[in-house]
């Protein structure tokens, strides 16, 4: 066997090992994509699916984000809807009151620049982009206080933009909701 032939043989081995690795790499990636699709469809965990627009210069005048409509409301279905806005440099309401063990829909938008809502210790995390409505489904299993910082740079006061979420017992919340109106924990 000549040196040239031996060299060709090693090239074949090299190519085979390489193909094997490439196959494993592709398999890993296909598996990741399938897992994400499965979790998205089967467990319904996915980012916000729909695009809704809103005029930020008019939100204080009419529509669902007028001041009197901000806060938490217990719907007839037993679910809770929370409406909030972010503006430089606070959230309204600054303290969001919600019940534990209840499906909650958070609907929020920005009155000026880009903000974000992040509830620490949870995976509730969404952007507030002026002109668009953000919607996020959430459910708290533990009562207590959670910090809710703005997570996107919104100019010089960004570091001071911290809200709060107070999760209370389900029946306690239902009692408070009987009085009607929109609930929050501002000043409590």
């Amino acid at each position: 066997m000549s040196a040239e032939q031996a060299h060709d043989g090693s090239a074949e081995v090299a190519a085979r090992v390489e193909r094997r690795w490439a196959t494993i790499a592709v398999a890993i990636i296909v598996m990741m994509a399938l897992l994400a699709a499965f979790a998205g469809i089967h467990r319904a965990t996915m980012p916000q699916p729909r695009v809704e627009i809103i005029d930020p210069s008019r939100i204080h005048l009419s529509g669902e984000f007028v001041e009197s409509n901000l806060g938490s409301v217990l719907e007839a279905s037993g679910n809770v809807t929370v409406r909030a806005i972010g503006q430089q440099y606070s959230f309204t309401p600054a303290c969001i009151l919600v019940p534990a063990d209840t499906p909650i829909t958070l609907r929020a938008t920005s009155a000026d620049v880009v903000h974000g809502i992040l509830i620490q210790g949870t995976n509730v995390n969404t952007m507030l982009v002026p002109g668009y409505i953000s919607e996020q489904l959430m459910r708290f299993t533990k009562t207590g206080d959670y910090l809710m910082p703005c997570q996107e740079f919104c100019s010089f006061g960004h570091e001071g933009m911290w809200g709060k979420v107070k999760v209370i017992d389900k029946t306690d919340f239902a009692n408070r909701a009987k009085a009607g109106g929109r609930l929050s924990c501002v000043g409590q």
Partner: protein
Amino acid sequence: MLANRKLILAHFWLAFAVFGVALTLGAWQMFIRSPIGTWLSDPELYYRSLTAHGTVMGYVFPTLVAMGFGYAIAESALEQRLVGVRWAWTGFGLIVAGSIMAVIPIALGRASVLYTFYPPLIGNVFYYLGVVLVVVGSWIWVALMSLNLRIWRKAHPGAPVPLAMFANVAGSYLWAWTAVGAALELLLQIIPVAAGLKNTIDAGLARIFFSWTLHAIVYFWLMPTYIAYYTIVPRAIGGRVYSDSMARISFILFLVVAMPIGMHHTFADPMVGAGFKFIHSTFTALVALPTLLTVFTICASVEIAARLRGGRGMFGWIRALPWDNPMMLALAFSFVMLGFGGAGGLINMSYQLDASIHNTQWITGHFHLIFGGAIVIMYFAIAYDLWPHLTGRELIDVRLIRTQLWLWFIGMIVTTFPWHWVGILGMPRRMAYFDFGDPAIAPQALSVTFSAIGGFILLTSGLMFIVILARGMRAPQVDAGPYRFAIAVHQPKTVPVALNTHALWVALMIALTLTNYGYPILNLALSSGTSVPAVYVGAQ
């Protein structure tokens, strides 16, 4: 010595000088918002510093390194005269002018919008124009890389393009196209508002345009590092490239799939629907493929070097590697950081997991580990490797070089690991200070302190790097010989056209951009009622 050493040295020195300044700002930021610093009385200063740090580290520093390295590759890999030297200096001049134009409004506090712009926040128009000039300057480089390759092809019809140049041109095309997203955002949306011609802007559309640039730019930063993995490291440690064609496939994959994936930055955004978010998530998974292939090929190439040096056994060969060689050390550090950073990246791009860490300090930790760590440590290695060919002088401080690399690695780990951790605890990004007196935030104080210490280790290492290069300008003269690149075990005599040209892949890159970005962009651009009033920064 390289014929265009002045041109290349100018790019490198400017790159490392601005890097030194931005690194110092970064260390100050780490310190001032940690419990060991006192609270800033004026948080605005923090955002000035942050804007400068991001603009330099994101746009100016890596672009100059890629350009300088690109000119070195064009000259030495193609072994022909570099055509368009005057244009190259023009591009360099544009970058200098653009940087100065951008930095003045930043320093005056008139452009504290961060390098990611964030409209409807609007800063001084000269900041944006400066960034545009930097990009235009770099586009001249893209054209020159293409032109020089074309001249070489004419002289060598059908011959395999040297791997270093093939990858270099792929990187330049990637940059040219990915910069278009931010360019559209700046030219069509932000600059008209900053100049006072309009006073409303679609913030959601701007975020989509920016995501077009924001992800693939990372792969542009990465290109010099990958070129070094494939074409410098094996030569420097006495090995061979395991496979020339797999290297080409990796660079082609970067070119094609780095682009249509940027919307994984907008998972939490309200202006993109679920479908496109999922498509972009899947494509982002694909971009792991060229990295997985690279890890294999480079490990195999390194093993070849070890076995040529007498290494034996399943893992025993690792001991036979030239660990006192700075290039070997840099590669090992780079791979460790790439491994951790890459694993974090898989979490970020994941359709579901991203929600837990989106816009937290985890993300800042992630890209500092990948870019500042895995990528920049190879920029150091590239500079060390090229320096004797640029100065005609030997870098004699090998021990100092090793210490510098060790410090950078340790500093990066000490900085970014706690950074990831506080991100998981939900600590938000881009804040001038934190109230560590709040019982809910107090547990993060220790981690933030570690990160700040890491920042100072990095600063020490970065300054050492600059000192080593400066001393190298006055070291004893040496004939470094021609600058060479690693060759493959089976150096190809012919290469299939698909692996030797870029046209098909550039077409695919553009087509995938159109399919993955076309609808979301048109949908918002054509719909009315999404523009919102601009909010001017620094306008008292």
